[in-house]
């Protein structure tokens, strides 16, 4: 059902939508039931129930140590939960679903190759034909404003450029869902702004974006809906406007106000 409307609106992206329709439906909704993660007797993620149905940008917000990054890794299938269920589009997480997603980590992970080669490598892993890889890589680099660095070794780029390259690589894969773990935590304001612009661009292209941050300002700028996490528990999940105006919990209110939340 949902793909029909965008098809009418954007005939140019027919091809992309077609491949998505032929695979087993859209990744959404994302459903978590009683999701828990325990290590060494400590409950790091504690019985999280969640349903994400809407497109757009979801922000996972919370103080450091709340379990935000763990939750993101769990839903991407990088770690296995101790208990509970993860479903994307009604299906349990598997390699096939992960291939329709892309993730950007807090610390940019770049291969010891040129910027362009980092992207063509990822495209190769996803089975994109060799002839198509270069043009798609260049497109992605242009999107991130990195085209003049195409043949620069990726690891000599600045921190902000490296993170933009990671995001460009993720976007080049044409993912249905894009997951980001504190992507701007160690970046300067200008780099942060360009990352946020890319995320908003991704949202407009119909990509589901889930971004982890502890930065309230960033959550305000980006979020359609906010998941507030504390001590591994989901404290609230609300549309952004309501969350920032009328938080239900005291911890969220204190956190939004800039207080230390223990």
């Amino acid at each position: 059902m949902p793909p029909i409307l965008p098809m009418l609106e954007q005939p140019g992206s027919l091809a992309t939508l077609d491949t998505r329709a032929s695979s087993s439906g859209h990744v959404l909704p994302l459903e978590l039931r009683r999701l828990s993660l325990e290590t060494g007797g400590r409950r790091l993620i504690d019985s999280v129930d969640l349903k994400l149905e809407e497109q757009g940008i979801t922000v996972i917000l919370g103080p450091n140590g709340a379990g935000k990054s763990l939750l993101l890794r769990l839903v991407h299938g990088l770690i296995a939960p101790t208990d509970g269920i993860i479903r994307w589009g009604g299906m349990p997480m598997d390699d096939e679903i992960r291939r329709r997603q892309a993730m950007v980590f807090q610390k940019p992970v770049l291969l010891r190759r040129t910027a362009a080669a980092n992207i063509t490598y990822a495209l190769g892993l996803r089975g994109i034909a060799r002839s198509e890889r270069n043009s798609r890589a260049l497109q992605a680099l242009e999107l991130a404003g990195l085209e003049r660095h195409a043949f620069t070794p990726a690891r000599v780029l600045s921190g902000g450029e490296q993170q933009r390259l990671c995001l460009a690589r993720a976007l080049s894969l044409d993912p249905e869902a894009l997951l980001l773990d504190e992507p701007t935590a160690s970046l300067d304001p200008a780099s942060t702004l360009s990352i946020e612009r890319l995320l908003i661009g991704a949202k407009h292209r119909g990509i589901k974006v889930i971004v982890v941050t502890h930065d309230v300002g960033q959550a305000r700028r980006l979020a359609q809906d906010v998941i507030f996490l504390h001590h591994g528990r989901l404290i609230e999940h609300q549309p952004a406007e309501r969350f920032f105006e009328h938080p239900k919990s005291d911890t969220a209110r204190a956190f939004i106000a800039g207080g230390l939340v223990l």
Partner: protein
Amino acid sequence: MLDLSHAFASALWQIVTLDPQLLEIIALSLKVTLTAVTIATLIGFAVGGVLAVYRFPGRAAVAAVLNALMGLPPVVAGLIVYLLLSNAGPLGVLQLLYTPEAMIIAQVILITPIVAALTRQTCEDLLEEYRDQLRSLGASSAEIVMTLLWDGRYRLITVVLAGFGRAIAEVGAVMIVGDNIDHVTRTMTTAIALETSKGNIALALALGMILLAIALVVNVALMGIRRLASHFAYA
């Protein structure tokens, strides 16, 4: 004293005039060691890469054995190959004892554990950094091995050079399985040992200088590779 300086001058003369006997020994040494290094590199990269990425029962034991074999005394490697290739041994029918091939086998046994263990270490260090990102991108275990070997290329070149350095300078193993036969299995190190004991100091000195020069070239190459790698931030 006069004797020594005479021997030194004679050694230099042999080098600058490209004495055929000297060249023959150097050529055989390089042929044996370069062949052994090539084989050890192919095996060592594969074993090291697989050990770093795949999880299987006994993996820790294999890694421990490899690390222990890094310190394998060359004479022991020689003895093992001797026993394997001697007429009474399981591979005696091949009639390889006292041939260059026997020396290649001994050097392969000597340096494959070194290449494999250092490759495993290099790949594991890289994997620590890459694991989540590569899994997120959907790489299979085999693809991860290839990725780590390529991304570790600068360090792996230094691993290969370390193996070359050990093999070219080694005397115990090739002496036992090659027996230092003139024109057949005489390498630089075995010739130095023999000629010194015979009192032919000039040839021994000439070969010694060549060996030192090779060691110097290898180390300069190592430095250059390290500098290049850090320039590209690929270290």
